[in-house]
């Protein structure tokens, strides 16, 4: 192959323009260039929608990027509208498939062929505990079940923590409150209802219980949060003015970037009523679009190799606070936090117990249309305390029906 003849070049579209995401992809780009490539990244600031608009425009224009950010079931959906490249050979060469959680692997090889590569993993239901709030509550036991969690929250409240929960109020955040509740109550029900859209499961008692738990969570929150992102609360969280946060691992990177110390908080898997960790999977991935240009093709190969490279995954996760996709990465070293180690351990456990499920709030469980319809119900429920859990159950089922 004339691979050495062309200088690898890669066009990338992502929404990672700022903060740790921006820093991480910038570092990836540096690596790409170190390997002799030309890195052409177009960040599309704003919401994911704008990124997808951009991607759609490029695809319609017949000029898709060599590689773009995309995740979850959208990979399958989008792969139908434009040709992607087959990465099977590269994946095989890297022996990657063995080290990727099977549920995750499935998402990235729709139709049985690898067309995209996951880059990093988050759990959307990690529980962040504020040291100072724990001190105020005079509690040292890490909550494991929802009952523990609820008791701790009450204790915190009694101990002078103004708002035991430090979550934000964005749509995905509201979604996380619900999905963490449901998955913690019953991973099986979650799988049936949310991932498989089983009608009976959707109307099952677990759903109602999950809504009830989500309501509790929101009741412990600052009513003034509104639609603010959780990041607004971080300072109060560290200060012990707020106590707990059900958040993705990314919050760790954010906390670090904001200059807070790891000693100030603890990260643990989210509550699970059967005491075994439940892992709500959220993975960022790159999809590779078919291009004719040899330099782009070379770039895609290089990129794929980089993304699968444990060193790169290590670097990336250490910047963003996620955990590597590869389960064979050793997290014991310097540069990894306890939280990340615990997350990785939780993933292992969860996979072993079949308690690793795909996140709804972060578009891993369903295509965007369905996800949005369900989140509509959830966020309205979280914000509108006059809606009864039973009612929410019905609405959720209706929304699923309507969006299909």
């Amino acid at each position, binding site marked *: 192959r004339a691979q050495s003849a062309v200088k690898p070049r890669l066009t990338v579209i*992502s929404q*990672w*323009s*700022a*903060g*740790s*995401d*921006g*820093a991480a*992809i*910038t570092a990836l*780009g*540096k690596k790409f260039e170190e390997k002799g490539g030309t*890195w*052409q*990244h*177009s*960040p*599309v*600031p*704003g*919401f994911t929608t*704008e990124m997808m*608009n*951009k991607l*759609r*425009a*490029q695809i*319609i*224009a*017949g*000029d898709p990027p060599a590689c773009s950010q995309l995740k979850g079931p959208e990979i399958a959906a989008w792969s139908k509208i434009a040709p992607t490249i087959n990465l099977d050979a590269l994946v095989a060469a890297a022996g990657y498939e063995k080290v990727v959680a099977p549920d995750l692997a499935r998402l990235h090889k729709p139709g049985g062929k690898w067309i995209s590569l996951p880059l990093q993993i988050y759990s959307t239901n990690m529980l962040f505990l504020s040291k100072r709030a724990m001190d105020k509550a005079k509690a040292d036991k890490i909550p494991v079940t929802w009952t523990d969690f609820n008791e701790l929250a009450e204790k915190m409240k009694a101990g002078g923590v103004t708002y035991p929960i430090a979550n934000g109020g*964005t749509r995905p955040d509201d979604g996380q409150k619900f999905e963490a509740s449901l998955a913690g109550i019953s991973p099986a029900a979650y799988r049936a209802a949310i991932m498989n859209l089983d009608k009976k499961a959707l109307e099952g008692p677990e759903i109602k219980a999950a809504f009830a738990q989500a309501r509790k969570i929101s009741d412990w929150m600052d009513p003034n949060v509104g639609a603010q*992102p959780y*990041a*607004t609360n*971080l*300072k109060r969280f560290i200060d012990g003015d707020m106590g707990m946060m059900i958040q993705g691992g*990314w*919050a760790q*990177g*954010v906390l670090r*970037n*904001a200059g807070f110390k790891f000693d100030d908080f603890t990260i643990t898997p989210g509550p699970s009523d059967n005491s075994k960790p439940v892992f709500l999977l959220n993975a960022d991935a790159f999809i590779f679009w078919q291009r004719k240009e040899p330099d782009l093709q070379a770039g895609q190969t290089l990129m794929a190799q980089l993304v699968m490279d444990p060193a790169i995954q290590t670097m990336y996760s250490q910047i963003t606070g996620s955990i590597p996709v590869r389960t064979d990465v050793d997290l014991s070293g310097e540069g990894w936090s306890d939280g990340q180690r615990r997350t990785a351990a939780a993933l292992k456990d969860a996979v072993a117990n079949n308690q690793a499920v795909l996140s709804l709030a972060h578009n891993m469980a369903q295509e965007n249309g369905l996800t949005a319809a369900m989140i509509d119900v959830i966020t309205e429920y979280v914000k509108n305390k006059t809606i009864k859990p039973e009612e929410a159950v019905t609405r959720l089922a209706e929304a699923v029906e309507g969006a299909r």
Partner: protein
Amino acid sequence: MRDRTFAPSRMLIYLVVSLFAAAYLAPLAVVVLNSLRTNEEIAQASMIGWPKQLAWRNYAAAWSGFCVAETCAGIRPYMLNSVLVTIPATIFSTILGAIAGYAVSLWRFRGDNWIYGIVTLGLFLPQQMRLLPWTIVLRDIGLINTLTGLVLIHTIQGLSFTVLFCRNYYVAIPHELIRAARIDGAGFFRIFWRIILPLSAPILIVTVIWQFTHIWNEFLYGVTFTTGQQQPVTAALIALSAAIADIPQHGVQSAAVIIAALPTLLIYLLGGRYFVRGLTAGAVK
């Protein structure tokens, strides 16, 4: 009525007007103050507050410091992109709108009312709806991901406004002027250039102000139809504010907002007086 006699009532007028002015200025004041406070200070106090010490470095960071992905050049390069789109699009849409408005109002041709009606309806067509069709059009003419493409979009869409206002302005120009010029032997363009254009200052100021601010502030097309380093300043602003996963950088964000809004604010400051005047001539028909 419009006299200066009765003093107490005038005091009341001044009071009410001042209150309103304060309310209108408040958001600007908040942004200006925040642009001079550090992020920590804002996070600890509220969004509204007096700077403890002036954090001028917010401006430095906003202008040429903060990073959008791998580019850490602040909003400066994006300002330039916006200028490169806004100025030509403003000029083209204004000139073409003036010519078309002149043709529609003073030269009457078959079907002109229909064309004119449809074009002005464009004012009301939602932007979101046009996004995909534009994608297809830009693809077909090969202008996707170019500033030229954006200039084209803004020029064509801007015509709706410029034609409407120019036409309303020109219908008030006496037809006899055109007739005299035709008898003098002047053609379409000579009449426009020598007679109509010199009379158009008020309405051109209105359309220039309007077009400039609208194109400058546009976001959706800006991010969809440009790539990487070509993005307009609004994209950079969003990048700065939509870093959802981060501690908000309100200070730098405010400074960036101020810098990015300076051109439009200036244009209103300088042209506001003519804006009202031209609007009268152009809109009240």
